[in-house]
């Protein structure tokens, strides 16, 4: 008997291995012209895994203090064997993960995969996206370079504008009134302890819900398949879809390697809290559409503070986005949601591009 088979039999005898894997074997993935969108969730999960692995490796050398953070990252980039690769892959994977998470969210939105009974799958996914952005925001400061320092200052300043709780929120995020070493320690804590704990819990819930309800058939395909059941095509999740997903992960790995080799993530210059802010400070690309919008809003809108109005509008939009499955009932609201989604994609794209070219 082959060794692998013997191990498997050993596990099966004790834990009922075959029984545990049965749900995976029974799980199927619909095959249709939009099937390739199903890979995005898996790619995002893969990139998260890369983040965890490279993050743990970075922890071996990273020092979370204002005096040592920059130098420790510099040491990782120049002295540690393959440190440059680990750090570049970590940074690039973070950005790609948020990008694929956004794509995944929009694919679910346009295919209306959030509809009953998958409302909570959508909600957990949206919360995961917010957490991923939180990971990005907290991780951006950790190298303690000039751009990160001032972008964090601007970002936490914006948080400070939230009505009623703004100042307290800002002080909580910064660990004081200013961005200092205390902010760095705090962000490090969020980045390596609080957020990973929350995201692990949410990913588990998200995957459980996906497993429980199966993979959604696009709304527009459902009537076709109901009318002609013989046209309905499916593949087994394990191993057929998983093998294809694995190929997508390999492509993602190749892209990450190429980005790390051809465009290693820069380090910039060490943050100097007493230096004036350099011109053209911008946040990471996934916050840029909001940042640019806030810049364009006039200081005063009637009696109200323009920035506060902007923040409240984005908060409200985020809340509505989170509750989309509960709003999408009638044909009219479905059209409204699709129209709003198309507008949001165009708006985010245009504002991000504008943010990049604007001075």
């Amino acid at each position: 008997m082959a060794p692998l088979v013997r191990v498997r039999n050993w596990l099966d005898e004790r834990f009922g291995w075959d029984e545990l894997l049965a749900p995976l074997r029974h799980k199927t993935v619909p095959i249709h012209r939009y099937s390739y969108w199903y890979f995005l969730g898996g790619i995002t999960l893969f990139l998260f895994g890369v983040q965890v692995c490279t993050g743990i490796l970075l922890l071996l050398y990273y020092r979370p203090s204002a005096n040592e953070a920059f130098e420790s990252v510099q040491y990782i980039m120049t002295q540690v064997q393959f440190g440059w690769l680990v750090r570049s892959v970590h940074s690039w994977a973070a950005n790609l993960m948020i990008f694929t998470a956004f794509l995944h969210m929009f694919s679910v939105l346009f295919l209306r995969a959030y509809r009953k009974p998958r409302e909570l799958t959508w909600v957990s996914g949206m919360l995961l996206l917010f957490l991923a952005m939180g990971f990005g925001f907290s991780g951006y400061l950790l190298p303690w370079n000039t751009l990160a320092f001032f972008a964090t200052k601007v970002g936490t300043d914006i948080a400070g504008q939230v009505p009623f709780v703004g100042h307290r929120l800002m002080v909580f995020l910064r660990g004081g009134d200013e961005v200092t070493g205390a902010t760095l320690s705090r962000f490090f804590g969020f980045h390596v302890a609080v957020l990973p704990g929350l995201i692990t819990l949410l990913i588990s819930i998200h995957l459980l819900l996906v497993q429980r309800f199966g993979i959604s058939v696009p709304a527009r395909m459902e009537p076709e398949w109901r009318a002609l059941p013989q046209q309905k095509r499916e593949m087994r999740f394990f191993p057929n879809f998983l093998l294809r997903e694995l190929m997508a992960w390999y492509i993602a790995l190749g892209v990450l390697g190429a980005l790390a080799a051809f465009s290693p993530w820069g380090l910039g210059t060490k943050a100097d809290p007493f230096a004036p802010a350099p011109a053209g400070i911008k946040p990471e690309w996934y916050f840029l559409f909001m940042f640019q919008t806030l810049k364009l809003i006039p200081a005063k809108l009637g009696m109200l503070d323009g920035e506060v109005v902007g923040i409240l509008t984005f908060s409200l939009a985020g809340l509505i986005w989170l509750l989309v499955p509960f709003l999408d009932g009638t044909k009219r609201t479905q059209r409204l949601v699709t129209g709003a989604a198309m507008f949001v994609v165009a708006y985010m794209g245009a504002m991000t591009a504008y943010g990049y070219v604007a001075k």
Partner: protein
Amino acid sequence: MWRNKNLGMVLVLAIASALAQAEQPNSCVDCHSALEGELHVTQEQFAQDIHGQKGLTCASCHGGDPSRTDDSAMSKAAGFKGKVDRAAVPKLCGSCHSDPGFMRQYNPSLRTDQLSQYQTSVHGKRQAAGDTKVAVCTDCHGVHDLRPATDTRSKVHPLNIAATCSRCHADSKYMAAYKIPTDQYAAYKTSVHHQAMVERGDLSAPTCTTCHGNHGATPPGVASVANVCSTCHVFQAQLFESSPHKAAFASAGLPGCVTCHSNHGISQPSDAMLGTSAKSVCTNCHTQGDAGYQAAGDMQQQIHGLETSITRSDVILSRAESSGMEVSQARLELDQARDALTKARVSVHTFAGKPVLTDVDSGLKITAKTYSQGQAALRERDYRRTGLGMALVAIVFVMVALRLYTKEIEKNGSR
């Protein structure tokens, strides 16, 4: 409670006093605001004046009684002095500004030696000799819109001093009788000092008064030029003092720094000033065959060698950086080589080859290291790219294998 009451009373008194002052009649400006030319003075203009702001009135300088609204305001009985004669201006200003006890109540840190300094200046001496064309206090500071020197609108603010001096000193007709050049301002405007002051906004950069003095303004003599320059260029001056040029210049009657760098139109020093080329200042005195000529050529070559070496390192590090390589440590070290180059350029003022060579050698050692760091960074970049190529081949291989395996299991009907 008691404190609050007192605070309230002080406030009421302060407001009442301010209102009383604002409402005090001033018949001088009532008439003079309607006059034209030199006699035109408005309340708005005088309100901007530092004297007006400190509570002085027209009567403080001109006498008279501004509270009267008829001609008696300008009567002798009211102490009216009328227009202050130019010759009397320094003493009139000095009557307050040379009195430390009086000035202390307004600005305890303000100097009170302006008049005594003025009396030692060329302006003051000529004025004492009866020359009425020379500058008096009001020519530089203004009259009824006089502002503190820290105010950028003041005629004596560092940014405006050169223009203020030029009003007389660049006017060839006005200065004709004195037989001194009038191109100083034009030359200064081309200088590195003016560039620092105006373009970079460096208010510590020298302007006319920095070298000539302000109230005690006088041209620095041949012997004291180096002392003037050394107030900022300390190291260069120290090296010059112990150099062979010190005695040689003195015996030839040449002023120290100015001989090579000129005075008002000092341009950014360049390595071309050194050596034996046509642009060199060394060849103004040294000729082929003498030791100085040889030393000038050697120093220029050494400095040029270090500069070339720095550029070479800079180019290779830039190439590495543009490939995304982290070379900030090498960049820091290259800055030290630049410091060595600056030091070597300063050492030129010893006019001896050895100190320059020492500085150049220390710079060259650094550039040799930074260049090899740049080369190592480029090798590392190539290594990474080779590694990526191999990884991609492995990835493609695994993907093909996965595809074939998928096809195989699906051919067997397990879709």
